[in-house]
């Protein structure tokens, strides 16, 4: 925890198994790809009025 109360983690990639290493990398690139797509398609969502 730093002096502002924010928790930081220190990870070592070497602590991961080969499978975990592959999976975490794959998850991250898939997540970024998902985010990019979401951002590019984001638009205003009109709220539906109750009873209408």
């Amino acid at each position: 925890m730093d002096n502002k109360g924010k928790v930081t983690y220190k990870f070592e990639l070497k602590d991961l198994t080969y499978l975990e290493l592959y999976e975490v990398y794959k998850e991250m690139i898939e997540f970024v790809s998902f985010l990019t797509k979401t951002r590019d398609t984001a638009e205003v969502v009109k709220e539906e009025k109750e009873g209408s």
Partner: protein
Amino acid sequence: MNFKEYIDKDIEDKKNLLELLPMNTEARVKKYKDTIDNIIRVYQPSIESTKKYIDYKYNKLYPTKIDRTQQIEQIKSKITVYKENLISTNPNTSYYERLGFDMLIFELEHYYNYTLHENNDIIVKIISKFELASVKISAEDFKLNIFSYNYMIYIFKSIRGELINTETLKKIFWKCPNVYENIIISFRILIIKNQKRFESYLKIFESKILSQYNYKSRNELIQALYNEEINKEQLEEQDEADIVSDFISGELDFSIYQNTMNNLYGELDYFLINPIDVSNQDLLAQTLIIIDNFYQNIMEYQKYSTNEVLFENLKNTYNKNIFNLQEKQMKKDYKAQLNKINKLQAKAKKQFINKIINGENIDQILNKDEFNKCIEQQKMLNEIYIEYSNYDKMYFNLILKQNIHENSFISSIVELIVSYPFFSRSIIKSVFELENNEEVTDKYNEIFDLQYNRHRKLIDMKSIFSKENFERRLMDSYRFDNLNINETTFEEDNQTLAITNYIKLKNKLKISKFQRSLDEIEFLINIKKLKDEEEKV
């Protein structure tokens, strides 16, 4: 918590967070997008450092295959020379086959399959066989028919290095479509005439070959061929780098091995009647040797069964045409046939028109009388050509009679096929309905390998005529050794299954000794897939 667990949770949290963000106004959508950009910005360095680490690991683990193509090609060339030497020193054949006259004449008989240039090459090759035995021949030796004589004048000119006009050769062919057949007749006269010279050349050649390699007998030559084949197999044997590369490329299915490596000797259940104690190293080694032998037998059986139809064809020919004939009478008939041919040849030679064709005079070369004389002579030559074909058939029938007996094994048929390609190639072509010469050569080579197979066993066990179930005999002998072989093992699908199980067992034993772990191999496969996908994008 490790990095993976942290990221799993973080991704979930971030997704939940994004779901909660309102997007009902332009400003809120902008904020939503800014939030996403921030997340991406945070993730980018992690992705880059992970990628860097993965690349480092991947490159460290990636197999470096050793290219052994050149060494293998060198051994293949050696094997080809040994095989040629085995043909030239085959004690079961005559000078005609040993010098390769049979195959060259066979090729020239099928002149219509080749270009003019290729046919000329075949003729030059036949002439070179005479040169080997120091028999000097010239166009003068072809004074049988005006057109074949003139064709050969051009051939000898080209051998001397003189430029020849192939248009003239084409004109000769159009004028006399039997020209190659007439040349063959002249060659056959010359080959028979010089038999003794060829035989003494081959005697010297054989001792020269043996002393060149310092061999005492032809058997040592066969052994040398086997040794080279062992060397070739060792070079072709897949090592760790080869197998791992095949896993990465998908040529080998890794999942099959990944799921069964914990049961290293699992395939033994397929091969054995009773399970063995695999911790007993001696028993295990002994069992693996028996399975190795069985694998070689199955491979031989596979080659045998795919060619069974050919062996049956020769067997039926024997039963139909030869079985009831007496060898003494066959020899007499064979000799009489040659006398008949000689008489016909002497008669045909008298009709020879000794004129030189220069290309331009071809249409006026014969006057009316000579033209008629030539037509009459060609009829005689055609008859001689057919009689030579009958002579060849009688020769092969005699060979079959002398080599196939009531108690002979398939190996005798295989040996005849290999020794007499002149006959066997025609039979191969018709039995397997093959279109081109390459396919016939491949099939012939397959049978050659069956003959000179150092693991050869079955073709020496299988009788040609007896109805004895040799699969049963083989089965019994293996059952003594605890091998679970039954009659269905020899069915086509089961042959493949046995081979697959054997290869799997062998690969598993190799993989168990690999420096790379299964996890590392799986990592390589997964990362390669990712890299391929990245490349696509």
